């Protein structure tokens, strides 16, 4: 644990135990999403599905990166990951992104994807609100993740015909915002 780093956050008026719980729940959401998106990506096939596959893959890899970036902050603040993977899955901040009953229904898969990203956007907005001006490191990390989650939501939302987002698929490396936290 980074004792002084935790003290600084606590002294700034943040409930550190609550914050750590939120970080662990969101780390669980990221890792479980990485798993569930693997299944969704595998089922994105055919003329419709293949067009979505690349952004689903980018979102999948970036969600795994978010997990990697969150873990050090959890331990710095005195938290830890559960020893039991089942417990970790069940405490996720977002519901499982389960493959729809009809795996050939690309629109249904897109709805699962966009709901997962919207849950993440809400979660990181909440943590940013809790830590703004108080816990600079967690804030910067969660803001970086939020930037990527908003882009993920935009990609899937466009495929659902909800309107233009102004975003485009990744052309360079993944995680342009979060990369500095785990490189």
């Amino acid at each position: 644990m980074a004792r002084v780093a935790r003290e600084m956050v606590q002294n700034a008026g943040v409930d550190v135990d609550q914050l750590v719980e939120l970080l662990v729940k969101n780390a669980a959401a990221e890792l479980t999403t990485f798993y569930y998106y693997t299944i969704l990506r595998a089922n994105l096939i055919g003329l419709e599905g293949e067009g979505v596959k690349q952004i689903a893959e980018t979102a999948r890899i970036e969600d795994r990166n978010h997990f990697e970036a969150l873990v050090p902050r959890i331990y710095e603040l005195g938290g830890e990951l559960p020893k039991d993977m089942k417990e970790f899955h069940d405490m996720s901040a977002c519901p499982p992104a389960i493959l729809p009953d009809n795996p050939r229904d690309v629109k249904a898969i897109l709805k699962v994807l966009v709901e997962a990203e919207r849950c993440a956007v809400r979660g990181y907005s909440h943590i940013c609100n809790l830590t703004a001006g108080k816990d600079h490191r967690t804030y910067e990390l969660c803001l970086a993740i939020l930037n990527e989650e908003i882009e993920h939501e935009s990609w899937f939302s466009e495929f659902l015909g909800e309107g233009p987002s102004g975003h485009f698929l990744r052309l360079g490396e993944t995680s342009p915002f979060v990369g500095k936290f785990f490189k």
Partner: protein
Amino acid sequence: MKKFTKESLKSYSGKNGAPVYIAANGKVYDATNSFLWQKGKHMADHHAGQDLSPALKRAPHTAELLERLPLIGLLDEEK
């Protein structure tokens, strides 16, 4: 539709196998089967069996998400 008071709502906290009921804006919802309300707790600091209207104002979502849960009653906010 069933009527609840803040006092009667307290017994639906999700503790010891109790159902998970939450109230907001005068409506009572059943969150027992919600993944996000396991054991009557939501996002580290919200507990079932309560009127969550004040917390909802600070939440990163609106009442729209609650509308996805079964509506099971009305809350008498005076009592």
